[in-house]
């Protein structure tokens, strides 16, 4: 081996970062003009391995800076500072339909980043890298505390930022797959919001009684959050993705108990039987089940179930009565929900009602349904087991990887700014240059 290449120096700064922080990947001391591959490897909790890599050429000083230099091949190309994370895909030979989601958010995501001689595309396991470093990506900032919540029959987890507080609060809801999904709430707590992730489809009480939760469940969650000594009870927002949007809009408009300072709705719709319980809403979707389509790869497309957007007001949340700012995040290639059509209809309804000054729509071309925190890999489709169907299906979410990843990064930044302004006062503009 070339002795000079022994000392190729690879560094990633910071080596321990939050999931939404950027890092700088730098190679120094390489042979000027040499071709190198930078590869990231991650083994997730369920044992599957993921990889991403870029092809680079060292400059005349023997340096490669991933934030400034272009990748000319690999799982991403061009100047992509965070490409080694967002372009992760299962290693060759993995089973199909995988999706990367962290369950235990108290430990970091561990990524190994290595540099190889030449422009490699496969067989990495048999190659010896020139250099390698370990990088940690955390959902929880130091000092953030996780508190399980079972009060009032809830299945939830509260994440408190470090410090005396009081902090504005946030209720965090995911979609039809159920489970207690904590990572977004943990990350938002790292940004100063007391965030409660709620399981409302597979809650302990549902698993034990076989009955879906009712509207009071959400109001209980709100009350528990509001009454917490470290929460600023008059500043609570709600964030929902997919089916979580349905709940968020319903609560924002109709609940006598829940008074939101702001709402964020990602990849969802306002179409639902007004005044319906969770169970009734799910049955409404199932009734339209024959509108399910399939792609050539036999992936399930559910976006048509709620189309066309009804004109009947009893089938749509009356967003004209909304009294708090609303941020809608839409992927224009969403194959799972008609989020774009819904957003347009919401805009019209609010314009007619005179409260459209409350609405902001972020609409992203070629982004799919699963708009998640930034730098997490895009899944165009994955296997899903919803609470409605017993067997697993391959669900088409949509989106093209590059545009979807940009959408995730942009939407997250704007979401955090939106929440900061509406929950922390917004009297002084704040800067987020580190995001």
């Amino acid at each position, binding site marked *: 081996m070339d002795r000079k290449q022994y000392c190729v120096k*690879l560094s990633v700064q910071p*080596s321990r970062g939050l999931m939404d922080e950027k890092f700088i990947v730098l190679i120094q001391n390489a042979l000027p003009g040499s071709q190198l591959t930078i590869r990231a490897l991650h083994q997730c909790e369920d044992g599957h391995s993921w990889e991403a890599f870029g092809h680079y050429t060292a400059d005349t000083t023997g340096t490669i800076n991933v934030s400034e230099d272009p990748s000319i091949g690999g799982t991403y190309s061009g100047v992509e500072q965070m490409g080694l994370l967002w372009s992760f895909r299962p290693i060759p030979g993995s089973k199909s339909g995988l999706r990367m989601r962290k369950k235990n958010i108290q430990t970091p995501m561990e990524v190994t980043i290595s540099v190889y001689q030449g422009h490699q595309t496969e067989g990495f396991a048999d190659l010896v890298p*020139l250099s*390698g470093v370990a990088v940690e990506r955390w959902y929880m900032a130091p000092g953030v505390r996780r508190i399980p919540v079972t009060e009032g029959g809830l299945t939830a987890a509260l994440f408190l930022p470090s410090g*005396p507080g009081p902090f504005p609060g946030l209720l965090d809801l995911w979609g039809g797959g159920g489970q207690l999904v904590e990572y977004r709430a943990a990350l938002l707590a790292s940004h100063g919001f007391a965030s409660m992730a709620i399981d409302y489809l597979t809650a302990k009480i549902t698993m034990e009684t076989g009955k879906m939760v009712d509207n009071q469940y959400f109001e209980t969650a709100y009350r528990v959050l509001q009454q917490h000594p470290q929460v600023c009870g008059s500043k609570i927002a709600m964030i929902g993705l997919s089916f979580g949007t349905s709940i968020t809009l319903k609560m924002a408009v109709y609940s006598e108990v829940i008074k939101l300072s702001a709402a964020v709705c990602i990849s969802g719709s306002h179409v639902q039987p007004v005044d319906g319980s969770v169970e009734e809403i799910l049955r409404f979707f199932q009734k339209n089940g024959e509108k399910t389509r399939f792609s050539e790869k036999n992936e399930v497309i559910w976006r048509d179930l709620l189309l066309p957007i009804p004109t009947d007001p009893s089938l749509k949340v009356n967003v004209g009565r909304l009294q708090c700012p609303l941020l809608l995040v839409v992927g224009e290639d969403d194959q799972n929900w008609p989020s774009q059509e819904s957003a347009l209809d919401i805009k019209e309804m609010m314009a007619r009602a005179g409260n459209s000054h409350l609405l902001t729509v972020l609409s992203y071309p070629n982004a799919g349904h699963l708009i998640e925190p930034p730098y997490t890999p895009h899944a165009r489709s994955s296997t899903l087991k919803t609470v409605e169907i017993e067997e697993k299906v391959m669900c088409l979410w949509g989106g093209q990887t590059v545009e979807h990843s940009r959408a995730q990064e942009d939407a997250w930044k704007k979401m955090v700014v939106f929440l900061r302004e509406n929950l*922390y006062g917004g009297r002084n503009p704040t800067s987020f240059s580190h995001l």
Partner: protein
Amino acid sequence: MTQAVPPILSITPSRALVDEKFQVLVENLPPGCPVTLHSLHHSEDKDDWEAYGHYVSDHRGVVSVTEDLSFGGTYTGKEPMGLLWSMRPVPGSREGLRLRKINVCTPMLVNISVHSGHEDFRDRTPLASALAERWYMAPGVKRIDINKQGVQGTLFIPPGPGPFPTLLDMWGGGVGLLEYRSALLASRGYVSFSLDYLRSEHLSADVEFKYFETAFNIIRNHPQVIPDRVGILGISLGSTVAFNLTAYSTIIKPRCIVCISSNHYHPPGTTLKAGFKILSKHFHKAHFDENNYMSWRSFGLDLIADPSNNVEVGRINCPMLLVNGCDDQNWPTVETAEEVARLLREGGKEHLLSRLAYPGAGHLIEPPFSPHFRATKFIILNSKKKGQFLSLSHILTHTST
């Protein structure tokens, strides 16, 4: 019910290596508001250390420790890292404390908070706070206890395939085995071996010399080490070992040596401990300052005036970096460095020598942003701190060539 929504304090990055900078930012304050930024650390020895600076928020209600000026506290002026390096024991603590991390596998936790007002800021609960983790070990660095052929110490290996350039790391007298510098060096890509060389009493100078040669060879032969890229890093008494080994060994050839607060006093045929005993016979000549702290500088000068007491550094044939604090009161390290330069010049080997000298800095030149100690229980007298920020990066540049 209305509660005031508090300001937001953020530390970026919140998890970092100890030699990395961070940015402390407070937002959402009222404009033109006097506040105090306060850092607090509860040490492994169960002492509390703190630093603080007085600031005023701008028209946007923002205080940036990186950009703004502190008007008082434990540091003043524009000091992005002042909340770390100016830390000192809280009022009422015991005397002569020193902040050194023994368990390098866990981070140092620093709580940074913002309080309203300047005077008596302590009387009020903080408006906001955040926690920073300061690590000596980067992810993936391996820590291995070594006990081989009588040699004891701790080895730190960087992540990656290797092999790596390597350092034999030696601390000074009066301390146990300190690992934090080695851990940090491994985090920067060097295999680093923190050698325990003062634990046991060696029978003779020869036996002691062999201990060091054996240690060097064990490291040199390690599969993760590039055998012809092993250097020696020593501070204080450790620098004496570095000089001694490099000048006289026929077996080992360090690629380079770095001596911090250099000391070449080593009467021939004595072990280090025996040498120290000779030194202690001169304590009655020690100078005591107005605080009754002890300085060995003046009698040290007398001792090294006799060249037969010293290592013949003119014999050294590898590149050398000497780092000194010009205000070193513990040992005449400045004079030592001058003497080394002179001897090398006489031998036509001046090109091997690089020197860094820091005005106002003392004897204990440590990794950056750690608090400095004017005096500590065992040893020394020190002054200001600036020296240590720059020397680590110089050392690393020096040893990577």
